[in-house]
């Protein structure tokens, strides 16, 4: 898949870039306000990953929704599912045991090691902004082996050198911190409105893997509040193909994915 002359918008670029990261053996589920990952999972399933299984909001297994509604935890996504899980508590062990292997996080803050904050901006006891809370972040960051990060606001307020609160674990303090805690896997990539980043093998620091068409490396560096690892020449993120763009628009006809880009 290479860049084309197709018209596409930034949301479609981000969705396609994230979609390409999901291998065929992905079994993913999603949380609240996860329009980009839901769209990306649908796209991956419709293209290179036909065996990919997506569970809508830990409720509906392998659904075939006609559109993506206002809530990624609600019934708009459940149509055509092979199973409706009756109990979230009954469902957790599938994630803990590794059968559900993938989850996508965004955070109000993300640090160099892929840890995320969705709890507070400012001190916990007297926050400047109280956010919704970590929800499943503290659970899934530890227990699901493949974490995918995304953000549609790549700026220094989001990509910070120190989180105000660590709601979800990425690579912790970096290096072998996860392994010392006895935990598998970790974040694989972080896809933003500017670039795709992955993690340096030993240090587990975020590394610039590609910049989106029209974005300069320096622009990403300036937009990132921590020191980004840059190794050699940084290629361009492949633009979505015409087929991908068409599929995205068919899978998300109301443009729910655009809600995350304002």
């Amino acid at each position: 898949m290479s860049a084309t002359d197709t018209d596409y918008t930034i949301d479609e670029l981000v969705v396609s870039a994230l979609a390409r990261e999901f291998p065929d053996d992905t079994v993913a589920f999603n949380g609240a306000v996860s329009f980009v990952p839901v769209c990306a999972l649908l796209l991956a399933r419709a293209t290179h990953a036909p065996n990919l299984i997506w569970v809508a909001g830990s409720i509906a297994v392998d659904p075939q929704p006609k559109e993506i509604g206002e809530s990624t935890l609600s019934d708009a996504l459940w149509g055509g599912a092979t199973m409706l899980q009756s109990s979230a508590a009954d469902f957790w062990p599938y994630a803990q045991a590794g059968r559900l292997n993938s989850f996508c996080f965004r955070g109000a803050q993300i640090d160099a090691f892929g840890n995320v904050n969705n709890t507070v901006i400012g001190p916990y006891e007297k926050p400047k902004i109280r956010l919704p809370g970590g929800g499943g972040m503290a659970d899934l960051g530890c227990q699901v082996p493949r974490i995918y990060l995304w953000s549609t606001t790549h700026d220094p307020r989001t990509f910070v050198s120190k989180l105000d609160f660590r709601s979800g674990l990425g690579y912790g303090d970096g290096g072998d911190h996860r392994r010392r805690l006895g935990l598998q896997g970790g974040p694989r990539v972080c896809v933003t409105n500017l670039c795709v980043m992955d993690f340096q093998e030993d240090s587990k620091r975020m590394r610039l893997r590609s910049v989106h068409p029209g974005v300069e490396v320096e622009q990403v560096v300036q937009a990132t509040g921590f020191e980004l690892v840059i190794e050699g020449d940084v290629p361009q993120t492949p633009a979505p193909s015409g087929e991908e763009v068409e599929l995205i628009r068919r899978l998300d006809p109301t443009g729910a994915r655009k809600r995350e880009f304002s």
Partner: protein
Amino acid sequence: MTTQSKIWPLEQAAELVRDGDVLAIGGLSLNCAPMAFCRELARAGRRDLDLVAVVSGMAVDWLIAAGCLRRLIMGLTSFEGFGLAPSFRMAAQTGSVEIEEWSEHTLICALQAASAGVPFMPTRAGLGTDMPALHPERTWEAVDERSGERYLACAAIKPDVAVIHVHEADALGNARMNPKLVWFDTELVKAARKVVVTAERIVDTASFRAAPERTSIPSFAVDHVIEAPRGAWPTACWPEYPYDGDFYRAYQRAARDPSSFAELFAEHVAPIQEQTQR
């Protein structure tokens, strides 16, 4: 002796909760929260509750706006695509309600410890995050001496009362989600000392005997049954009615201005008293 009815009137719902209780409410985000019951608590002016709400939003916001809470024990509080919960946010930022943040699974572990009658449940969830240190008396890291494996211990939380909303219930306490999506609700039911079910409809016990594999909660686990048609509004009661997006949007608009909010809140929930200033 004759068999007893567990039916309780909605208008007296607040009598089932005492000031200072640990109250747990069901539902998940925009889905199937016991809103009619929460409205009754707001109207009755219950105070100093410790509220356990794993993944909630509007119900928490109502109880905070009405001044009912001392402490919120939560995993996530949000209106999802409709934005941050305004009263929750303000209470957290002003410190008027103590926010005890857990995560979904660790909070479920604490409830499961209560129902299993054990001091704590171990989990890998939460390791390496800042969450356990928020309440070190209730969550602490430990190492199993034999295997060397780390875990987070989640101490039992036993609610005094749990309230959930279902589609159908009978006078004996049998309850049915239809179809059977129980969210985290059955975990609350198993953990709590007293269980209250609000139901869209009261049905005959014969209806449960006719399809016993579809019963969600057994009669003996339920203490009180309250008829509450549209009792989950403005959250959804899938597949019977969706969440009311218009209400969420109107609520958010009103929240920008105290008098608009007071007006909307008085109309749909309860008159706001001066309790939020305490």
